[in-house]
Each structure stands twice: as structure tokens, then as C-alpha cells.
């Protein structure tokens, strides 16, 4: 799941839509994703963890030379976050 080009593509499509709407706050984005993917409201701690992941991933992607060319770090970070949710046990086994 983490290496499948198809799953990566789905995650990227969703990430692209998500960042197109520039009125949205990042915490709303995390909230919406968990609602969409897990079919439930997120806990505050989950929102914080999601944000922390996206920001950290974006920072790492922007300094990682080898990651360049696969997309802007922001989109890459949201793609990675979405893909992680899609590969998680909660999505695979509870929804």
C-alpha cells in the first residue's frame, strides 16, 4: 500500500484538491481528512499529530535534494499523510 503507485496517485489527487482551496486552515484539512477517511470525528490530539506530521514532512522534503522533482514539498507532505491514513489499520479494517 505504501509503495503502490495507484494508492499514491489517489492520495495525490485528494491532496491536490485539498490544497487548492486556500481558504481552508490546515487544521480543518486534517479534520476533513479524518472525517472522510475514517468516517468519524477526530480527537484534538489526532489533529495536532496530523499537523505535526505534515509540517515536519514538508520541512524534510524541502531539504531533501533527492525528493525534488516529485512535486512541491507541501503537496508531497499532504500526499504522504493521506496515504498513511489509507494504509492504516483503522481504514483497512474498521471502515
Amino acid at each position: 500500500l505504501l509503495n503502490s503507485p495507484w494508492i499514491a496517485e489517489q492520495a495525490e489527487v485528494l491532496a491536490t484538491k485539498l490544497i487548492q482551496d486556500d481558504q481552508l486552515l490546515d487544521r480543518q484539512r486534517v479534520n476533513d481528512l479524518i472525517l472522510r477517511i475514517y468516517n468519524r470525528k477526530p480527537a484534538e490530539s489526532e489533529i495536532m499529530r496530523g499537523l505535526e506530521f505534515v509540517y515536519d514532512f514538508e520541512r524534510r522534503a524541502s531539504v531533501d535534494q533527492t525528493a525534488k522533482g516529485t512535486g512541491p514539498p507541501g503537496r508531497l507532505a499532504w500526499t504522504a499523510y493521506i496515504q498513511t491514513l489509507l494504509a492504516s489499520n483503522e481504514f483497512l479494517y474498521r471502515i
Partner: protein
Amino acid sequence: MDNRHFVPPAVNRRDFLRRAGNGFGAIALAALGTEQSLRAATVSNPLAPKLAHHAARAKRIIFLFMQGGPSQMDLFDYKPKLAEFAGKPFELPANYEAPGLNKTKLMGPISSFRNYGQSGLHMTEWFPAIGNVADDLCVLRGMQTDTEAHTTAIRQINTGAPVLVRPSMGAWIVYGLGTENANMPGFITIRPSLTGDAGSPQNFGAAFLPAIYQGTPVGLAKSEEPAVIDYSRNEKFTSGLQGRQMDMLRSLNREFVTRTPDSAMEGMIESFELAFRMQSEAPGLMDLSKESKATHKLYGIDEKETRDLGQQCLLARRLVEAGVRFVQVNDDGWDHHASIRDGLPKKCRQVDRPIAGLITDLKARGLLEETLVIWGGEFGRTPFDQDLSLGKAPEENRGREHNPRGFTMWLAGGGVKGGLVHGATDDFAFQAVDGKVHMHDLHATILHLLGLDHEKLTYRYSGRDFRLTDVYGRVVTEILA
């Protein structure tokens, strides 16, 4: 995104199905979960090497599975009487039924035999290269299995049980011993058949054992594609970035496991961890171009006819060398119901150099001593001929029917006597009469060589302790070195 009209349901789809259906499944799963978390508390990594029951003679296995049923009387078990009575009618056992047997006659051995090696092992001239390693072979001429249909017999050689769904031999072994390389699965099966008579994922499955012990298939039977592990590389993220993603996944999954009672999820967490670690090692290991030209030649990769199995055998050696516990090489096409006179020598040419190359190479690298090589099919063939064309095809085109009553397999390396023949069939190589080794006995012996007691290697499931050998099995002490 507008979520104003979206209200998460009180009961999600899965819960609804579970509650609406029979609740016993959930109870069983909860019980299983408790058992597994108890186990998880004591053993953190389920693939970590574990202590054997007694000193092991073999550390790893290469199982060369010759699917279809190689003909023992034409390869390893010459019968002068069969040659003498060739063409004469054969009295079938009572209630024996099979298609194309109405005017059945004995078929003499179709290949010439000779003695090989110091031990003078008597076998077909169609295996000249394997003949060069004859002194390493421990030939079991009295093999028996319970059924004579492919599906059931294949399941039995792989799992011990012909009908019910049971864990495969490789899964039991990795469950019992763990693996020596944390970056690779403990059990890899190369080009398995997944469908039809020839196979099913059950043959390398874990059944009720934790899922982490199931075999990882590499490539598919009859495929022209190179045998690789699917999705073993990530095109998008560097390994550093993916490591960060794995941390996130781990934390999501850990939290999920604590939130829900369903700790059977542990298996999924572990398999993701393993897959992530494999990325560092698997692609390099699978790359046969790293081997020298001489090695390629040794395995017959330089010739079209032997290339396919040669590549599989070389890959098997690379995997066991890297510490994979159980590697299965799958070869099919041994089911010679018809045209055995053309088909069998052709199969022999395809496998002779690759298999001999594997044994020679393992020996040269000092690996054979601790690697048990197993060769054989799910059963053997009959001494009488079979004519599936019902008289339409010429007599030379006949073949032989399946035969579970007596057939040949051989072992090499890891703690067995080389240059030894154990067991015998009757005058026509039809039934084992002496030194019988039932499939359960072979499994018990394989576990014994690995340091495992087949009566102690158990897993509690559904209220009782299960074994690879069920309630059967005898270690064939006569063949131990």
C-alpha cells in the same frame, strides 16, 4: 469540502455486519486476540530467531517442489521385472478407478539407468549432472502419501493435511525458529501456482498461525516476468521520508490497537514494518546480475532450456545465504499422463543442470552442511500405462497415471546421509514395501533436522493443539548422518 450535511453513523459498516451476523465469530476473534497479545508480550518480534528443541543439523531449507508427480521407475527406482513384463497386462487393485485404464499394460522403464558416484547410486541417464552429486543424495524410494489427486496431494506435501486448511510447512518452521535476517521474510516461495489443480495460496499460507509466518510469493508459475517482490521499491519518497511516514503509520496503528480490543491487527503492523525493512535488502538480493558468469553457467542460466529453473535455484541460494529460513522453488510439468517418452526426458534436461548446480554451489560455499535440500513431487506414477485418448493415439504416446502408494523423493545436505538409498517398492515400483516413509514421517524428519520436535511444535487453535504432523509422523532415524 463541505461537511455540514455529513453525520458519522453511530454504527459503522463493519460493526453493523458483525452485529447483524453471527456473533460467535467476534467472540472467537476476541479470544484469539488475547492469546496473541500474551504471546506478543513475551516475544517482541515474531520473526526473531528462537531456540530449537534440540541441536539442529540444518538451519535452513530449500524445497525443490516438482509439481505433477515425477515418474520414479523411470528416474530413481529401476525394476528389472518391469522391463521383463513390459506390455503384459497388470492386475489392478480392487476398486481401482482411473480414466484411460481399460486395456492397461505394464510400461517398462523408458530410460536407461547407470551407477553414479562412489556410492554407485543407480538412477536415470537423463540426470548426468545430478549424477555428479550422487554421493550427496539421500534417496527415499519408499515414499507414500494419502491421496492421488493433485489438489489434495499438493496440499498434503505442503501442509501435511490433504483436505483441511492447515498452516504450510514453511509457516510452521518460521513459527518454530524465526528467521536469521530481520530484513527479509522467513519463508519465500518462488513462482508458486496459485490456481487450478496445481496450487493455491493455501500451500504457502499460515492458516491459523499468525499471518506474519505465511510464505511470501515471488513471481508466478508459468510467468515470463522476472521473479520479483511486488512493490518492493517506492518511486515517490526517499527512504528517509518514507521512514518518517512509517513512524506516523506505526503511531496511528498503535493507537488504534489500544483503542479497540481487536489485537489481531498486530499482524498487519508487523508486516508493514517488515516490508519497509525489506526495501533496503530485497532488491539487491533479487538481482542475479551480481553473480559471476561462471555461476550463471553452473546453474544453466546460459541456455534457454535450463534458464528458468537455473534462475530460481540461484535465487534460492542467494536467499538462504542471506538468512531466509525456508525457500521453496516451484517447478511444474511433471504430470505425464501422455507422451511420457517425450515429456519426461525434456523435463529432466530442464532441471538437471540447475539442481546439480545448486548443490555444487551450496557445497562450495560451505552452505550445504546446514542447508537441507528436498526434491520431489506430490506423488509418483504407475508402472502401468494410461491412454487418455482411449485408443485414438498411437501407443508410444501413452503416459502413466498418478501413484501415491510408492514413489521417490530425495534429500541432500543438512544432517542426512549422502549416497544412501532408503526404502524400496515392490517388483513393479507400484507400492512401497520396505522402509516406507509417509509424508507425515518426512515432515517429522525435516522438523527433527531443524532441531524441532514435531510433537512439541504446536499451536493452540479452536480448542486444541495443532501440529504439522497432526497425530502422525515418525522421524526416519535411519537416514540421519
